[in-house]
């Protein structure tokens, strides 16, 4: 048992930190909450790619570095700590690349992985539909074979990064006769395909980070089918395990955590026993979330796909982020309601932004309820209802 890092890993962490600190010093970007999902900065992504830090764990033959999951943990932990604008590459790096690597053909690996790693191909996710949220297997978007092509019709919603994405990872029904779990396939769809249109959605924070996607007879060549036809639902479960696996769920609002602690120190609030107790408790809950996240990495290092471990970590962590934002709002009192840009706004309005944004954290990538189902059934062996 070892809770520490090796010397090389510590040095890697220092490299990542000094890169990020240098970026901030040069004024390229400001640390922000949610920057992993809302911070679109192609230039930042390019500079990260130049260092070989996209696709870090993929094999070298596909443009990766063949590094360990622990190295990627360190990299992402630091990106999140500094609130770096990594949204352009985050999804491909975290899960779509892995899906291509695990299930995709040799041609797909060669076509996409090196471009993702060079910071040239951004991906958005086309999973949820207006009628298919937690019950993803009931999705209605259809892909019908037509010669060498599939023709896709339907609608996706809450598609992340749609404005910037070059490609979407889309799940569509390819067999409407089969049981719903066994008639879904996974495709890579070019964002510029004729018939594909997008309407941005404004979320509760006022941010346009998501979109509705409309597929009107969008033609996708068969070579862009990932994995086996009709096995898409099983592939998405695998991908979701990775979507839920990372530190973004506990650290997505780390800049707020750091800022509220500093604010309390600087404004004499930290001598108040109630404030001390609340911040200390947040710190404890943060540390436990960090350990649950590290455990997921440890599982991946053993060569296993983290399943209920990811579900536990994600469910716990998004609830933590809600408490973090609530505590920050409480401490700031009436100032807490002031939004970014307002006169008198403290800590750049991060608290109300996170407070509002955190309502969605426990819905994205599997609601807390679905995650507890996963944990109960797969981790604890409880019988199905």
């Amino acid at each position, binding site marked *: 048992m070892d809770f520490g*890092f090796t010397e090389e890993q510590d040095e890697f962490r220092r490299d990542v930190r000094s890169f990020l600190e240098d970026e901030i010093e040069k004024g390229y970007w400001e640390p922000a909450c949610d920057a992993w999902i809302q911070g679109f900065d192609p230039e930042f992504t390019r500079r990260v790619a130049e260092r070989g830090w996209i696709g870090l764990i993929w094999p070298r033959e596909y443009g990766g570095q063949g590094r360990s999951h622990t190295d990627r943990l360190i990299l992402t932990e630091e990106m999140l700590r500094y609130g770096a604008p990594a949204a352009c590459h985050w999804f491909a790096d975290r899960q779509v690349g892995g899906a291509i690597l695990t299930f995709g053909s040799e041609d797909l690996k060669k076509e996409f992985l090196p471009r993702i790693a060079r910071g040239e191909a951004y991906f958005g996710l086309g999973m949820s539909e207006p009628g298919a949220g937690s019950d993803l297997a009931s999705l209605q978007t259809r892909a019908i074979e037509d010669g060498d092509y599939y023709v896709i019709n339907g609608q996706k919603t809450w598609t992340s990064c749609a404005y910037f994405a070059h490609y979407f990872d889309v799940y569509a029904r390819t067999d409407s006769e089969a049981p719903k779990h066994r008639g879904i396939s996974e495709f890579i769809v070019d964002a510029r395909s004729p018939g594909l249109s997008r309407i941005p959605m404004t979320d509760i924070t006022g941010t346009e980070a998501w979109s509705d996607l409309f597929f009107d007879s969008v033609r996708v060549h068969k070579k862009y089918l990932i994995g086996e036809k009709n096995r898409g639902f099983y592939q998405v479960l695998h991908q979701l395990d990775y979507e839920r696996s990372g530190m973004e769920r506990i650290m997505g609002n780390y800049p707020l955590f750091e800022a509220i602690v500093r604010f309390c120190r600087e404004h004499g609030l930290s001598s108040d026993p109630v404030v001390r107790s609340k911040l200390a408790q947040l710190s404890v809950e943060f540390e436990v979330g960090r350990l649950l996240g590290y455990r997921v990495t440890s599982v991946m*290092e053993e060569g296993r796909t983290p399943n209920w471990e990811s579900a536990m970590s994600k469910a716990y962590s998004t609830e933590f982020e809600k408490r973090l934002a609530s505590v920050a709002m409480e401490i700031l009192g009436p100032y807490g309601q002031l939004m970014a840009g307002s006169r008198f706004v403290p800590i750049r309005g991060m608290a109300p932004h996170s407070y509002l944004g955190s309502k969605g954290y426990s819905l994205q990538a599997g609601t807390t309820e679905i995650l507890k189902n996963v944990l109960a059934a797969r981790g604890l062996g409880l019988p199905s209802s």
Partner: protein
Amino acid sequence: MKLNLSEEQEMLKETARDFLADRCPRAFVRQMEESDTGYSRELWQDMVRLGWVGLAFPERYGGGGMGFLGLAVLLEEMGRVCLPGPFFSTVVLGGLTILDIGSERQKQEYLPQVIRGERMLALALTEPVFGSCGATEVSVAAIPEGDDYIIDGRKLFVYDAHIADYLLCITRTEPENGITAFVVDAKSPHVRCTLLKSIAGDRQCEVIFDRATVPATGVLGRADYSQNVVQGMVERATAAKCCEMVGNVQRVLEMTLDYAKERTQFGKPIGSFQVIQHYCADMATDVDGARLAAYQAAWMLDQGLPCATEVAIAKIWMSEASQRVMNLAHQIHGAIGVSMEHDLHFYTRRAKAAESAFGDASFYREIVAKEMAL
């Protein structure tokens, strides 16, 4: 980073689980709770023979050299079965304190006796102070008189003092930086021990030192340590208690899952109901968080790294998570869980006592707050 046990630790875990399943069934725990001494001499001697008492001590004193992590594994297994007896007091509170601050001569003298099972120890630290800071406040005085010291005062919540051969009594010899520990003969007529009746059914005592005379050679290590020395004892004790409690809550989770799979209502196992599944998921998250935090603290102690914050985090989490786990376990077990016939109460009672042992969550939150420079 490698968060699972080594092969050697896994073997220890398996051996301990088998041995304790055989030797410490619930009927035995019940019997010990009702007995006078609260432990079995025979079982203690068998644990000595297995090398458990010496496990965490360096080999040069006759120990097993498996460090604090080995001890953590053992304590978890002990917590799983609610093992009664003086292991915690003799090894964690007594032996490791001698190892930490005793002189080489004292280590040579006492540790082999302890490891061979010839002597038992208890730590007289806590005093009758209300409030959450009681864990580390020392005011009982030891006054020099010729070549001796006279200890006069009262210690509370002293585990297993009634069967100990030596008491390690923590005293104040100077107002500032004046913490001095003594090895006191527990059988001295000037030391009076009275059993308390605790919720856990363990054996905690009030110990009165009535002008007890201790020769200067009884000073453990040297006189007038700083408060840090108490913090060291409390840190070890707290991390160890957390590891023991990992076994407790883990076992409670398992018992609850078994029950949820077996118990049928409305024609289905209750574990198939989503509300019960989510309760269990919450319990598992609390238990895994507790395990990771406790083992992180144990690993740092094992490595000799400073870990006041990590120990505090482990204890805050354990103190609160264990209560959530017990509440849900009782809710899922239903009425049978609140009967003395069922085993759950053994765990509930011990978890409640552990919640405040060596400092409760409020006490440790203040430590975390200080570490955050608040």
